[in-house]
């Protein structure tokens, strides 16, 4: 009991000193706001944006679907030694071929020189056995967003990677902490939220957990910068910054339709004509896949302990159940039959 009071008093004194210092320094309410909401960790991490970049030479990519292949190509073009890993040997071969073809095309179109192409081709390796990727400086997993698969892979990578390796997960559906929960060395696990197609995206969200080390943050920021993207640090909260904002935008648009205030095309018309966004929310949802958007909203709702603000849309559920999935099924909020013909 005595100990408890001592600690409590100690913490109170420390926090008041911190507050006094900050108010004396700048008399800036913004600073007080930071202290109050504990944004100080973000401020502190922002220093790494300008610190020395970690020397990363070898990167392993786990999972060579569309996202993995696209990321691999970008990394190879920027001079990293990239090892591709996938249990499916056919998929792996196809991915390597696709990267090589794209590099050759780039050389033919003179976007890169022949020397650059030949040098890049040397940088590609492929493996089907997970322990083989253990010697890489950074390991990035890009497997589909299935929590159990991601957890198992991260546990496995953590067991086999060399001590100094940094392990990045590209999850967008789950928190980095939940994906890393089976690993032992939490300090080297970090989230790297990429946006596809990578070529045209401008930002990468970097998501440290409560236990991620400075070195891992530095490595993730360094990769983002070397890919020519703006790294943005986000707290490890479901959806991070961008997916959370996207969901909020979509959910409200869906609620307006569900409340019969307007049709989806009216909303899209208002949003685009009044230049609130280049695309209307319903057009965007159709492009991204209604099943995907619905699955995401259900996940965030569960992860937020059923907070009513994140209540998924009934309309979206029904459309998904009836196979109205957007552009991929030629029918969502809009019809794409003619486009298909």
């Amino acid at each position, binding site marked *: 009991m005595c100990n408890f009071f001592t600690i409590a008093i100690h913490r109170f004194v420390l926090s008041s000193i911190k507050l006094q210092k900050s108010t004396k320094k*700048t008399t800036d309410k913004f600073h007080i706001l930071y202290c109050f909401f*504990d944004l100080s960790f973000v401020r502190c991490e922002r220093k790494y944006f300008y610190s020395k970049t970690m020397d990363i030479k070898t990167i392993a990519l786990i999972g060579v679907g569309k996202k993995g292949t696209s990321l691999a190509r970008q990394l190879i073009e920027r001079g990293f030694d990239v090892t591709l890993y996938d249990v499916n040997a056919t998929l792996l071969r196809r991915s390597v071929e696709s990267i090589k073809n794209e590099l050759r095309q780039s050389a033919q179109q003179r976007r890169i020189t022949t020397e650059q192409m030949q040098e890049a081709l040397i940088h590609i390796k492929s493996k089907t056995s997970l322990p083989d990727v253990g010697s890489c400086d950074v390991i990035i997993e890009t497997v589909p967003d299935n929590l159990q698969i991601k957890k198992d892979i991260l546990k496995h990578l953590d067991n086999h990677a060399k001590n100094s390796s940094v392990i990045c997960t590209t999850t967008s559906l789950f928190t980095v902490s939940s994906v890393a929960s089976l690993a032992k060395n939490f300090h080297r696990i970090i989230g790297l939220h990429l946006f596809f197609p990578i070529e045209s995206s401008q930002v990468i969200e970097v998501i440290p957990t409560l236990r991620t080390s400075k070195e891992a943050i530095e490595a993730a920021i360094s990769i983002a910068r070397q890919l020519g993207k*703006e790294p943005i640090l986000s707290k490890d909260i479901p959806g991070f*910054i961008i997916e959370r904002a996207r969901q909020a935008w979509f959910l409200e648009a869906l609620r307006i339709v569900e409340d019969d205030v307007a049709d989806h095309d009216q909303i899209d018309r208002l949003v685009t004509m009044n230049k609130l966004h280049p695309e209307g929310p319903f057009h965007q949802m159709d492009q991204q896949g209604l099943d995907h958007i619905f699955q995401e909203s259900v996940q965030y709702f569960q992860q937020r302990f059923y907070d009513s*603000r994140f209540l998924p849309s009934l309309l979206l559920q029904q459309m998904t159940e009836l196979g109205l999935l957007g552009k991929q099924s030629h029918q969502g909020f809009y019809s794409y039959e003619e486009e298909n013909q």
Partner: protein
Amino acid sequence: MNKSSHSHSATKQKEKQSSSHPTVYICGESPLVEEAALRCASSGYAVKVHWNTSPTETAQPLPTSITTVNTIPDNTAIAFELTNTDIDVKKKNIQKMGEHLPPTTPILSSSVTVTATEQANWIEHKYRLVGIGAFPTLLSKPLIEVAPTIYTPKETLQVVSNFFAPLHSAIEIVEDQVGLIQPRLLCSFINHIYFALGESIAPPDDIDRAITQGLQFSVGPIALSETFGFKQIYATLQALQRGNTPHLYPIAPLIQQFAATGRWWKNQQKENNA
């Protein structure tokens, strides 16, 4: 001809011109009144304005063609009531318009925080009131939301449409529900972001950068909230909360604080720098 006589004749000509153009009476709060007044004046309407409380600062000085009045002009062709934050003041304004204006003069009233049908019930000639989506920056856009009440005849809507045509704005007819479309969509979005800001997800500038660069919004939600003003956002969210589904619209504590104090960190930073 000397300078003074020239300016005198110019003023006379202006007066003549303004008398030949229909008079628009705009009453309400800043910055909505200024926005609507500038828009109408640029299309040649003779504009008379009245603020609920005199605005502390306007984004740009109003041209001389816009005059401030304390009484409703008799020759008003169309009247605007643009108050979102104070329903009692709004009710008084609408009732005053209902008493002073001829029964055929349409009243375009902001229905962002209270439905147009509810407002129509405050006056005798209910058919002449039509709701519009009046929210900061939205009155200058090419598509204006219009919410007819259950009493609105087609003729009144036609008058409204004809009024907006020379302003190069089309109208979008929407259901008469609080928040309409754009204010509801934008305020709810901003509210979500302020919840995230309260959870220390990232600093405000980073949030705006992530959303503009990652989601292709032209302006980030934090910057938007400063443009709209926290009182307008808070009033809209409160109106949504009063609706059928209050559990879907809890208001972010930061928005409540900033609406009450009228301050935000960028203003504070500017003051400190000065």
